[in-house]
């Protein structure tokens, strides 16, 4: 099979597969089988975050006009295995609860994955800390956030799942100031008795048992520790030891006593955080147990409610300073540009027939079987092409022939049609004697200068009638010989080039003559 037939085989295959699919009319959920281009379905707006595994953009669903968040992961660039990313997607698709960001669907466009999720217009709690003038939140606001996160964690942990990266940056807010747990980039699934052993998270928020890597691993209680650290972060503006080097902090967390909430805070807040930061995970309370803690009652205090006011304030601030995030990867850069071949190299897979459109073979193996077929092919080409008639005129020995001018070695397409002085291809019609000669030359003995260049020059010399022409041809031949001896291999390259060019022209002629 030639390369072109592989390609056409592909087309017909795709067509038949598509028609096969359309016959299956019982398939109702088209999203499962259709691979639409996501860029046609969604209009990408600004970058809203640089997540642990790709940039996140706000986008508009072109059909409904609704805002969605799209995480775009360039699969050529990411170090993550596709299998691992697929696991993350399965993980996300198992979460359906009001306290966690919903997953919608995933597409592949060019070499990127587009993960379409619920859009949280209010940004993250880390955004609030960054942009609010006081850079921290009041106890009742924090109680509200923590309570909502605990609902989310209770749901997650009930599914035997661990978030593993709880921190203000991963607690998202809707436009209405509602709290949603987001970024499950490092989340893991624990089986009934199985504990996790992978080392993930962000140092300042990491539970001691994750860092210590004890034999028995860790479980969902690690999220509770991180939640305690997050509470400190929300109340004071940063996690404990934030000014220290993260690697040093990492070493110190398992060694030191748990951090405490410093400053003027209520006893219930201190107590709540102390419970979250119990070093022994078995003694640390669960999400369900913490939901009964007094600190969370503050969430329903007068004047608390959602974080709508803070969200609106931060939005206005961001607008004023024209705040935007620069994505790490450009959405437009495609590995497979429109209209370009998806391949960087064309191989030569011809066996017998030479496709007229293709650049001819350079290094065809010369086997005795191979030899005859190309000849017949070429003969057919000769006969079909308009050139045929003129090419039969043999200048040699013809009294009517014009004075030969030896421009035959630089054939351009136009020239080729009108060239009458010399007939380069006449060797084809020379008869038996020629073929006998050829048989004596096998590939090992083939000397490009002697067997092709010199031979051709001598033939031309025979055809030249005037003394001047003979002289010029001889001079050219001698120059060639000189060049070959100072640059061995020149003849070979030259012959190759002439050959390629001739093939191209022949191909062109065949093509045009069939039109």
């Amino acid at each position, binding site marked *: 099979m030639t390369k072109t037939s592989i390609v056409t085989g592909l087309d017909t295959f795709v067509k038949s597969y598509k028609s096969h699919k359309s016959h299956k009319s019982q398939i109702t959920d088209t999203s499962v089988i259709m691979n639409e281009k996501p860029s046609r379905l969604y209009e990408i707006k600004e970058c809203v975050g640089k997540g642990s595994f790709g940039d996140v953009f706000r986008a508009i669903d072109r059909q409904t006009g609704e805002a969605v968040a799209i995480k775009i992961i360039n699969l050529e660039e990411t170090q993550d295995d596709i299998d691992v990313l697929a696991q993350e997607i399965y993980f996300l698709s198992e979460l359906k609860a009001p306290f966690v960001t919903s997953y919608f669907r995933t597409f592949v466009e060019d070499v990127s994955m587009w993960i379409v999720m619920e859009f949280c217009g209010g940004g993250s709690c880390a955004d609030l800390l960054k942009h609010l003038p006081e850079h921290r939140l009041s106890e009742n606001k924090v109680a509200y956030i923590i309570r909502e996160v605990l609902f989310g964690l209770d749901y997650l942990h009930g599914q035997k799942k661990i978030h593993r990266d709880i921190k203000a940056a991963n607690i998202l807010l809707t436009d209405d100031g509602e709290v949603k747990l987001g970024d499950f980039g490092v989340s893991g699934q624990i089986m009934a008795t199985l504990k996790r052993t992978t080392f993930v998270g962000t140092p300042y928020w990491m539970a001691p048992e994750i860092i210590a890597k004890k034999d028995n691993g860790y479980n969902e209680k690690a999220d509770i520790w991180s939640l305690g650290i997050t509470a400190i972060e929300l109340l004071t503006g940063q996690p404990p030891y934030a000014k220290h080097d993260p690697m040093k902090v990492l070493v110190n967390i398992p060694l030191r006593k748990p951090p405490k909430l410093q400053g003027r805070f209520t006893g219930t807040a201190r107590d709540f955080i102390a419970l979250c930061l119990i070093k022994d995970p078995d003694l640390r309370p669960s999400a369900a147990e913490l939901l009964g803690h007094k600190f969370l009652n503050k969430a329903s205090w007068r004047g608390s409610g959602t974080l709508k006011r803070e969200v609106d304030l931060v939005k206005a601030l961001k607008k004023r300073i024209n705040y935007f995030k620069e994505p790490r990867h450009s959405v437009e850069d495609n590995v497979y540009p429109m209209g370009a071949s998806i391949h960087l190299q064309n191989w030569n897979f011809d066996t017998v027939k030479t496709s007229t459109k293709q650049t001819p073979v350079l290094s065809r193996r*010369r086997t005795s079987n191979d030899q005859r077929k190309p000849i017949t092919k070429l003969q057919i080409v000769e006969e079909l092409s308009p050139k045929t008639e003129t090419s039969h005129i043999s200048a040699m020995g013809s009294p009517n022939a014009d004075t030969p001018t030896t421009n035959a070695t630089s054939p351009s397409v136009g020239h080729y049609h009108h060239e009458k002085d010399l007939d380069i291809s006449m060797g084809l019609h020379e008869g038996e004697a020629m073929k006998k000669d050829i048989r004596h030359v096998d590939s090992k003995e083939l000397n490009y200068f002697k067997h092709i260049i010199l031979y051709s020059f*001598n033939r031309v010399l025979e055809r030249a009638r005037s003394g001047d022409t003979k002289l010029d041809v001889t001079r050219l031949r001698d120059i060639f010989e000189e060049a070959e001896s100072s640059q061995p291999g020149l003849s070979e390259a030259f*012959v190759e080039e002439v050959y390629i060019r001739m093939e191209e022209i022949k191909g062109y002629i065949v093509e045009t003559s069939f039109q």
Partner: protein
Amino acid sequence: MAFWWKKTPKTASDYARLLSEQLNKFDNTSASDSRRKVQDECSKYLSGIKHFLLGEVEPEPSCESVDELYDAIYQLDILHDLLAKMPELEFEPRKDVALIFATCLRRSRDNKFVTVDYLVAKPQTLSLMLRTPELALTKPSASDLFLKSGSIILECLKYEQLCRVMLRDPQLWVFFDLARGGSFEVSTESLQILTSFFTVHHKLVATEFFSHQPNLQKLIDKINKLMAHGNYVTKRQSVKLLHSLIMIRSYNQLLTTYINSPENLKLIMILLSDRSKNLQMGSFNIFKVFVANPRKSKPVLDIMVKNRDKLLHYLACFNADSKDTTFLDEKEYVVQEIESLPRLVSPNSDLTLGTSPQN
């Protein structure tokens, strides 16, 4: 959810019986109200069974009562009915179904996997299991159903005895089609299922599957189709699958068959020249095996000889800035091998070739 268990003082097997009854009601219930009620009942019993099997009820269930529940599950064919009625269930209970399957499969007694033995004797359940993902695509919320039913198959394939039965089912070939034509979830999970089928139990696959010659060729054809016509993700995953297959020692027959076919070499070379770096690297790992083969078939050798210069030219800049020493060594080896191929120029040169008249 666990507290309902305490409130209803019935034996463990009663819950299996109640679940079974409710599952069978789906067939005769069309009104949406009563349907909803059946769904709710099923959710309740499924959640209860899950917590019971996981030992998450107070007081912890006795061994006898757990055994009783398992026996009831087997006797009432609950696993079969769960598969059949999975599309009728809601989102959360479907997750419970998958978890109950996984938990049941892990159950061992006297060094025997009881549920595994049970399923081996129930080929119709396994057959239904293999068909559930495809059927899921005809339902609403197809993607979710597909992932759940696929995850059950993945659990089963961990056990050699179940893999043996499932390998005999021609339905396994359908996952190749699903891997090519599906959404991201459908295509990646189909490939994971295929990977589990062929890369977990080597001996079994070598002696009972590849020993049947048509299987070998069909597998090659199917993987080639994925590599040639899949989307970017499918291509990458199927190249990876093929590479791991030919690297498995007991699949020597597959390796030899693969690397002796010129058609396969063509495909791998086409992928080698793909614009994607990852596809290039993936196919290089297969291409090098073609090159390293000391007994290349003539058609394979012909392709390499014909493309000798192009290959050398292409490989010269191929992943040149890599710092992976293993790769660089392998590349050097491949380049050397290709350089040592006979260099032949000018096909059809017999046209212009002749002994010089001076000779």
